[in-house]
């Protein structure tokens, strides 16, 4: 088993899940409570990674963070490195790729919070931010955990985006899925089998956890 690849993958998945918890909460909050009539435009953009082939998504991310784009240039001016084929670039790509897996369970959980409870909190003098942390977050805890764990699991298994944006650099961007692919290409079936089994067990354990937590609902795919 390639422990370096497993370490890179776990680091990537954990950081992606944590970043999505921070970025996904305000996006999900806005999607749930905004009364803007064109909200569906943003909703569709958030859901895009669900339907786009990873290569297409990876291609655009690669172009967007490349040295010829404003974002890529700004990054290299500040940090002194380029984003493509680096762990940081891969992290950005992973965050975008797993965005719907975090935002949709978050938004579904927020939607299920009774508006009357939120109103009661307001009349008791709590600002919208305080109401969010003291009332909405505890009430949607299951959804928040589901979204975070799902984005972690989804990042564990990503392949196309990693290949496009991260390349295949040992110890930096070579993740488990790519390692398996390399092993198979090199006819090294024994190593591929053990790594594949590892990924299968971890993914199964993660889903078991989510389903056990939300026993009554179909939690992986938010119902809308």
């Amino acid at each position, binding site marked *: 088993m390639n422990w370096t690849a497993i370490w890179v993958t776990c680091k990537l998945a954990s950081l992606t899940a944590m970043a999505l918890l921070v970025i996904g909460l305000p996006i999900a909050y806005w999607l749930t409570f905004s009364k803007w009539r064109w909200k569906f435009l943003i909703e569709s953009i958030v859901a895009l990674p669900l339907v786009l082939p990873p290569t297409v998504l990876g291609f655009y991310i690669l172009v967007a963070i490349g040295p010829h784009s404003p974002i890529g240039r700004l990054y290299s001016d500040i940090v002194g490195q380029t984003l493509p084929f680096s762990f940081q670039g891969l992290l950005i790509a992973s965050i975008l790729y797993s965005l719907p897996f975090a935002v949709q369970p978050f938004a579904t959980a927020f939607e299920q919070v*009774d508006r*009357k*409870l939120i*109103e*009661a*909190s*307001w*009349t*008791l*003098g*709590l*600002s919208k931010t*305080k109401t969010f942390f*003291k*009332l909405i977050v*505890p*009430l949607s805890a299951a959804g928040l955990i589901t979204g975070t764990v799902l984005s972690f699991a989804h990042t564990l298994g990503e392949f196309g985006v990693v290949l496009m944006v991260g390349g295949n650099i040992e110890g930096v961007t070579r993740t488990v899925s790519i390692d398996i692919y390399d092993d198979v290409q090199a006819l090294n079936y024994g190593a591929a089998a053990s790594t594949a089994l590892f990924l299968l067990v971890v993914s199964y354990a993660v889903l078991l956890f989510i389903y056990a937590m939300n026993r009554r609902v179909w939690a992986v795919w938010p119902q809308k």
Partner: protein
Amino acid sequence: MAAEVAIDLTKTFPGRAPISAVLKYPLEQATALVLFGPSGSGKTTVLRCIAGLEWPERGSIRFISRTWLDTRSGIRVAPQHRQIGYMAQDYALFPTYTVAGNIAYGLGALSLLERKKRIDEMMDVFQLRSLETAKPAELSGGQQQRVALARAVAPRPQLLLLDEPLSALDVPTRLQLRGELRTLLNRLALPSIIVTHDWAETLSLGDVVAVMGEGQVLQVGAPQEVFCRPANASVAQIVGVETVIEGHVIDEANGVATVRVNGTLLKGLGRYEIGSAVFVCIRAEDVVLEQGETLTSARNHLNGKISEIISHGVMVQVKVDCGFPLVATVTRGAQEELRFEPGTPVVAVIKAGAVHLVPRCEIR
């Protein structure tokens, strides 16, 4: 400037007739305003506008010297800054917090010690001591109502807004809590606005009544005045109880109370303490008018004289003076057959079950 509440607002929901409420009443220490009307009359919307949970497209809301809303000058005070206590119809208790946690929820501005003291005080006032660590799902309807009230009044609001505070309860609990609520509001010296569709609640809780119908405030006044002298036919129809008069319980036996009203004795159903003040409420259609003494099973036979006859098409409203003014309705045919005219002596017959007694714990 005299303390008063002044509301003038228009709120339209898409696809429905606009709700426009104009309402002004003076405020004493614990004045309770009841917004009374049938469901769909817009009373809850008006209450939610006062709470700041609904934004009218036009209008103003003033509470004593503060302006909470004025669309003309662009003043919009958020619900967080109105210092109100608000209780929704189904109480909206926070399911993840305990009883104590719910009550403490709005006390974030207090110091730890102050907060502890306030929670203790609420536990005593609302008799929640034994439920301190219970979650809302474990409570009965009456207990939930007490927790919701305690939570709403704990931050010492300037005004308490109650949306159908008793309608989610079963009948015996409702009757018991109706009296307790009135006592409590007086004890807290807290002005309140209460939404209800129940006329008995209106009489027992309200100092001022605003009758709402079809999105409009139709009449504002003291409860008795509104019930006995409705401003127009719509109010009369909404109120539906034509005779409301004060009396005192002088005797009670086997669930039948005897009430003295201006020297006339009436029998009504219910157990009340002797000496307690009640409103005697009688619907006009429950009064039978006869000429001469007859024997019936009805407990009340009142001798009186017709003082006024008002025609309403096929029905005729007859006002009878029998020691107190009593309103009856008869058909035009009956009126002609019995030759009812002002001055005609009649006997008003009312079953004890049709004499509704609403306790009125007037403390002030």
